Each structure stands twice: as C-alpha cells, then as structure tokens.
C-alpha cells in the first residue's frame, strides 16, 4: 500500500507540475500518469500474473506523440540455470532507442532473444514488436508477445512463441542513462526464468 501511495503522490505532483527530480523530464499528462500509477501498482500487486492481462496497457506512454517520456534504452535479462540436467541460458533484450533489428521500429521496440541448451540454440529470434505489447511503469516493464504471430519477426532458430517478461526494480526508474538492477519473472516459450540466478537490468533514456 505504501508503494500505491507513492505512485499516487507522483501522479498528483505530475498534475501540479511538481515532479520529483528524476521524473521532471517525464512530461506525461496528469490523468494518464494517474492511470499509469494505478496500473503499475496493480501490476506489482498482481506480480507474475500481470502479464496475463494484456488489455491493461500503458504502452502508449512509451512513445506517445504528445509527450516526451523516457524511452527504453535497454532492458535485458540473462539467466544461466539447469534444465533437465543440462546447462540452459536465456537471454533477452528490448531496446527502443537503438535499433538492433534491421527493420524500421515504427514506434515499436526491438526484441532479441535466445535460448541455448547445452550450447545448442533452441530458440533464437529478433524483430520489431508493437508498442501495445510493452507496458512501462515507473518501476518496471512488462513485455507480452507471441513472436510467432508478429509480422516480420525473424525466427533464426525455432518458430517463436509466447514471451512474457516482467522486469521490476526496487525503486522507481527515475533517471536516464543509469543502469537499474531489476528482478525478472516470466519466460521464453516453455523455458521459465528461475527465482534466482537472474541478471536483469533496465536503462532508460
């Protein structure tokens, strides 16, 4: 509840034009910010279930034409774990301010990912994902996308599939050009992110 109060306070300050230092450059319309705060709090409260509610989206905030919000410089996840006794590596990165996808971003984000099992790739792909699949909150990012259904998505290895990733930082991502450590929950296809041994980072611009 304390977090919800903090979100509401930030939204209130946004309406009054008194933004916290790190949020001053996030010129989001007041009502929209309030919605963002509520949804962010809901996402946090719901935890890993949040990604199952794609209709709840604040993705428009990421690149709305009438605003100058922070954008995702980079959010990535790296996992090394065991899967059925074999070494499993999961890697995933989302970028909005650099284009590693060899295709126009069209106001979307570039997603790249890989799943490597015992040094053999089982799922590798990259492509531009529509903004509606990305939910940005003050303290995290939620990505929900089925890459097998994204037009133009390049499945280098495998045929793609559902990717859900929920980055959460312990404090609001208030500054740009600084790396924030995060936790991550979700998975790539059948391969889930474990509860430990996860490297997750967010950098905004």
């Amino acid at each position: 509840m304390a977090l919800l109060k903090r979100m509401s306070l930030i939204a209130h300050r946004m309406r009054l034009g008194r933004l916290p230092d790190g949020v001053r450059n996030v010129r989001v319309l007041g009502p929209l910010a309030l919605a963002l705060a509520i949804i962010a709090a809901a996402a946090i409260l719901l935890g890993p279930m949040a990604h199952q509610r794609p209709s709840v989206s604040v993705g428009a905030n990421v690149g709305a034409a009438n605003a100058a919000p922070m954008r995702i410089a980079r959010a990535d996840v790296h996992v090394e774990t065991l899967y059925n006794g074999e070494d499993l590596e999961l890697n995933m990165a989302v970028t909005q301010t650099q284009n590693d996808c060899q295709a126009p971003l069209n106001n979307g984000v570039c997603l790249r990912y890989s799943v490597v099992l015992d040094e053999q790739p089982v799922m590798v792909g990259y492509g531009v994902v529509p903004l509606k699949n990305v939910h940005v909150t003050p303290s995290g990012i939620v990505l929900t996308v089925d890459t097998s259904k994204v037009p133009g998505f390049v499945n280098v290895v495998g045929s793609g599939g559902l990717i859900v990733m929920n980055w959460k930082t312990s404090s609001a991502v208030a500054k740009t050009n600084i790396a924030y450590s995060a936790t991550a929950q979700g998975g790539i296809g059948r391969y889930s992110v474990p509860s430990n041994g996860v490297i997750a980072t967010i950098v905004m611009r």
Partner: protein
Amino acid sequence: MAHHQVVRWRALAAIMAISVVIVASAAVPARATPVAKASANYASTVLADGPVSYWRLGEQSGTTALDSGTGANNGTFTGGYTLGAAGAIVSDTNTAVGFNGSTGYVSVPDNTNLDLTGDMTLEMWAKPGLLNATTQTVLQKGTSASSAGTGWQYRMSINSANHWKGIIFVGTTSYEIIDNTDTLSTSRWDYLVLARSGSTLTFYINGHSVGSIAVSGATNTTTGMLAFGRAGGYSNYYLTGGVDEVAIYSTALTVSQIQNHFTVATTMDGGPTPTPTGTPTPTGTPTPTGTPTPTVSPSPTATVNPNDPIIMAAGDIACDANDKANNGGNGTSAECQEKWTALQLTGVSAVLPLGDNQYNCGTLTQFQQSYDPTWGQQKAITRPAVGNHEYKTTCGNQAGAGGYYRYFGAAASPLDTNCIVNCKGYYSYDIGAWHLIVLNSECSQVGGCQAGSPQEQWLQSDLAAHPAACTLAYWHRPYYTSGWSVGDAEIHDIWADLYNANADLVLNGHDHDYERFLPQGANANVDNARGIVEIIVGTGGDTHGGFNGTAANSVIRDGTTYGVLALTLHASSYNWQFQPNGHSGAFTDSGAATCH
C-alpha cells in the same frame, strides 16, 4: 577530473610519449636482436625476391605511384582515387589506395620489362568495396578489347559471379583460373598471386593454390598500359575497392616464396604463423556484412616504433579434457581448438584471456588438465579476465570462481592479497604507453557494475589516475553484440565511464564468435571522435556460436574461424588483426586506428 583536464593531460602525455620515442631513437643504439616487424619485413621480403617493379601504393599525396623495384615504372594515380586508406599488411603503417569504381585507377606506361612472355608472377593485395556481380579489374596490362584478345596480356579481376579470376592471354586464347569456391568480402584483404612457370599457370589466393592449368605459347606483348583498378588501356571494368603492395616479377615465385610473403604479411612479428596446410573448410557460413570498413583509420602522423609491444587476446578457450570433442587435446574441426590457438601466442608482451578460459566450470582440475598445457604455457605473461563459466558450480567448482583464482594466483586479482576465492578480479596495468584495465563482468559477484558499485568507483579512480594517451579495457560479457547473448545492460555505466575518460578500445568474449563495432558511446551512438571500438573475440577454441541478426553499428562478424586477436600498441595508435588458427575457417580482419 574534468573533461578538459583529461584532454590536457592526454595531450601532454601524447607529446611526452612522442618525445620519448624520438629521444630514445636518437640516443639508444640499435638493439642487437630487434624484434622483426611485418612493417619492415614484408617490403624487404618482396624486394629480396627481385621483382621487376613493386608499387607499395602508400603515398599520402601527389599523383605519382612510386616503383620501389628496379624497373623504373612509376605509375600515376588517376581519376577517382583515395590515398592513405588502411593497408593490407599487419603492423605496417604503409597505406593503400582506394578506387571509386568509375574513374579511379593507377596507370603505368608500357615498358618492355613489363612484357612477360614466359615465367612471371603478378602479386598484389586487393579488397573489394562492392560486390555487385559485375566484372572489376584489379590489375591488367594491355590495350583494348578491340584487338580480339591479342591486345591483352595478363589480368587479375573479380568476375561477374564475384569470384577471383586470373588470366594470361596467348594470341586470342585466354588461359584463366577462377576460384569458384571463394567468398569475397568487402571487409577483407585478399592476397592474389598469378604465377606462370614454364607451361603451368597457377593462381594463389591467400597463400594457397586454387588451381593450375597448362598453357602453351608466349604470353602476348602489347604497347598498352599496365593499370591497377581498371582493364589496362581499356576504359572499363573499374574496381570499387582497395589495392595494395603490387609486385611484378619476371620469374615464377615458388610456393614457399608465396607462402612466406603471406606469412610475413599476416604475422605481427614477422615470424612463423600456423599457416593452413590445406584448403580450410569452414564449419559454418560466414555472416555477410554490407558495412564498409570502419571509419577509424591510421593517422599519417601517428608515432610508430618498430619495437612497439604486441599483445594477443581471445576468450572462450579450453574445453574440458573429458569432453568427447577434446580428442586427446587435438580437438575436432568444429570444437576444442585451444591447442591450435595457443600455438599462435608467440612473440608477444602479454596474453589476454577474455573469460570462460576453461570449460565447463573452471575447476582447478579442469584448468590443470586442459588450459595449462595449451594457453597455460604463456601463464607468466598472462593477464586474465574472469567469465561466467569460471563461476559455475554445477560441475563441482568451488563457489566464487575458486578454480580460476587458484590457478592464476595473484595475476587474476592483484588488488587482493593472497585471494583464492570471491576475489575482485578487476585490476589494471600498463604496457608501453597504454593503460590496460581488466574488469569483472560477473557483476553480482563483486557488488554490481552500476554507478556507485565498488568496481565502478574503482574504475573511475583508476581512469583518473592513469590519463594515458591510449586505454584498452577488457572483460567477458559484451555490451554490444549481434551474438546470442544479446548484450548486457549491466555494463552500461562502466561503458559510460570509459567513454567519458576517452578510452579507445574494449575487448570481450562470451559470444563464441568474432565481431567488431564502430566507435560508440554508451547508447549505441556512433562517435568517430571519442567513441570506443568494441571487438568480441570469443574464438579461443571451445565452440562456435551464432548470430541473432545484426546489432546496430556492427562492422564485421564471423562465426567460423578460431583464432586470436593481435594488437600492436603504438604510442598513440594501434593495429589490430584477427589471426585464424589454421584449423578452422580462414576469416581475418585487420586495420589501424589512432587513440583519442
């Protein structure tokens, strides 16, 4: 330290370094046994074999292409050409000429000593700048096509299928050899030799014969010009690309002479290099790149000392000795090639393992069984970085990379005293005029990599305390990559620190491939003035990985060739060359850049 102060210190350091070199050159007698360098060796090696004419094409101005041979065949740079392009020879500041594909070429007037009717050798380095399925001539002597063939004498070119081709003309008959198996690259210099010995014509590419045919009769003679970059006197078939080190002999060079030239050219210290004894068989498909050679380029004024130190680096090195592909230490054509990359580590001041130096978990036993008999033979000059596999515990390793720190001892973490587990793993040292920084990208093991973390704070202090003219940093996980790892944002703040301190070069491993990027800031922004060049060299021997598209600002990539990156550290510049180990693909990448 404020940025302008850093710049001032760097400028002062650069001036002092240059002064030291000049003073040292004047005051110190020549060393009795100087380390031979390719810069001196290649030209002298060519000249020792007695070419009629030899054009180094390293002019920085003017229109004359000097003939360094005995033939007195100076040429003229004509049309659209660029002088001072990065040359083909490793550790050689002599530059090359580039042509624009429509008007640029070098013309050499006809001379009877260029009419080679019998034994002869044409030798040159060429790098296409465009592969557009049209004929491009790199060298030809003759008049024009209107003479029904008799107007032409000899030619080397790229054919319409983008393959190298060598031809001599006898009457109206053309004897031609095409290497239909080659894969030309716009980012690689190829060494071309067309030699006629009696009735045998042989075409060599990169030191290997790609075909021989029988010829009959004297090669044509004409009054037409010799040209580099177009079809002799025929105003057609222009080359888009570079040409370097052209030599013409009235004798047939032997195979050993040709291979010696190639070895000298591609070896940093001029010494022997593991030259493939057969045609290399790539184990995968090289990733093509349409990106031109980087904008970093040697400065004509850069100070280069022939005794400048050379270092070699690669990561992702030694297989577990119990790995089936280890094959008794010899590896296979696809994996476990640490033995062959280790043989490349000669004549260097330092060896830089870039992490994941021992698979699968970097236990002390694994290090002793596999790394030690190969790369470990250079342990005394090794400055290692730690990787994720050194921290793995799934195969019995001690937590905290105990195997790694025990094996390398104080060299792995000199900031700790007698540390054998959970050590910092980050440190710095100097080689020549360069400051080298080793970082631990297993961030969670050392309290993070973000701004304010112990490692990041140490880095800032170290950079402030060492305002060297040239700075190289290396660690395991790349920040920018096209490989499967997709890059690691944990490194962002460290990259920003290095960029703010005007660091020059970053080396990484982790992705099992080779990749080089344009100079960049911390947000994938190309910055040719202050950006950092990143080179991934995850090619030490273990396995090859693949690519996941092409990351922004990636210049060149390869996932077929094991080898090491050789760096020559000059006072204010550096040369790089990726050297294949001779037991996998034949990919190479080389160039030079100035420090900032």
